[in-house]
């Protein structure tokens, strides 16, 4: 019997909001798919395009970047820069022919444990029919 494909999602979560939000989901015993590999970064503004491309190169089926809501950034302006930069990366990846659903961004605050679980659930649901990501993946 063939095993169902389980997408591997790499999530870059900002320490002060999104990562705390994901912790809240865990502590509150909310159920959500275990497909996420969370990487805590200090601020969504510190996520370099290289991290995202590197994740895809190493075989991630989906990448999520999540930060504080605009106006709530712990470092005041970091997420505004992220908003611009991630928009550009998203456009570029789509231009080259990567499925647009594979790379997403979200605002998740420290209190939004529920929102975090919904984002992950939706993401896994969108990625399952797409299958494994082979385009940017490095084949040895």
């Amino acid at each position: 019997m063939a095993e169902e494909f389980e997408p591997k999602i790499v999530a870059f979560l900002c320490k002060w909001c999104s990562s705390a939000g994901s912790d809240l989901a865990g502590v509150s015993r909310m159920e959500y798919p275990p497909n996420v590999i969370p990487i805590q970064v200090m601020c969504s503004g510190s996520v370099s395009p290289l991290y995202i491309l590197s994740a895809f190169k190493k075989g991630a089926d989906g990448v999520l970047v999540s930060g504080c809501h605009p106006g709530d950034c712990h470092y005041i302006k970091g997420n505004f820069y992220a908003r611009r930069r991630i928009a550009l990366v998203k456009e570029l990846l789509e231009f080259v022919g990567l499925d647009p659903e594979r790379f997403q961004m979200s605002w998740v605050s420290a209190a939004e444990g529920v929102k975090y679980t919904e984002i992950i659930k939706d993401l896994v649901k969108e990625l399952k029919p797409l299958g494994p990501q082979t385009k940017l993946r490095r084949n040895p």
Partner: protein
Amino acid sequence: MVKLEDLRQEAAGILKSGKVKYIIGYTRGTNGFRPIPAFIKDPDDVENLIWNPACVHNLTKFIVDEKKRLKKEKNPDKRPIGIIVKGCDSRAINVLLQEKYINREDVYLLGVSCEKTGVLDEKKLNKKLKGRRALQVDFKDNGSWLVTTDSGQEKIQAEELLADRCIECKANFPVVYDIVFGDKSLRKTDRPFQSVENMENLSQKERWEFWKEQLDKCIRCYACRSACPMCYCDECVVDTISFAVEPDTPAEEKAQKIKWIEKSPNLSENIIYHLTRAMHLAGRCIDCGECERVCPLDIPIRFLNKKMEKEAKTLFDYEVGFDPGKPSLVSSFKDEDPEDFIR
């Protein structure tokens, strides 16, 4: 009309008065009609300067080189450098000024207008000649150019040989200069990003097949990076070994330097390299086309950078290289920046 005599006279004048260290311009080369960059120190040598639609090179790269050379000299000659700039090249100067890489007093800009033509794209010429080599090109007639090959001469319409970037150019007249030659006869273009839009209208599958085929060819010669005036980082993310290393840097630190992009020229690494480069040039690339011109494998690198330029305009209303006082694209933001893609 760009009067070559006036250009030469101005060049001789500023050399004689010692106003500039030397002048960077174009002169005849030894490979057929192709001009080459010239570095003129002696006022008598200005007779070697030429100007025609084959003067494709972006000479601002040599300004960047000069700055790097000056850093190492003990008693540097701080006089400005005279440089001949086309419309696109002048915007490169603006970006360098914007990033405070050079000061305005470091350069003396002799602007030339592309007027009704633009520059010749040699790849289009080769395709048109179907493998025969062009030995000479006569540009006297603006509308059609006379090409001499091994097997004779033929007249080809200038429009068929114009570089794509010239067809989409919004600024064929220099935007910054100390003195300018030629008329401000702007070529009208109402679809500045036509080629990018054509690519966007292809299906996702077609786009991937295109880029897969093109980027697989890449041999990572880094000619695109070397030719680009904006790629001036002393330590490029691709060259992990050149990261700042001193005699007392401990071995563990050297061993742990992250290699984001490996040396192997396979498709995956090539894509990471080119996409990273496009991101690093977002809001900085002025589409001089050098990257595509120098690529030995004819990879259409310009497209990626042009896409970034289009998004800069569409999403953030940002135009590259017109205002040196503006902050750069990725180190600024507006409250109204689009966020419809964010959950």
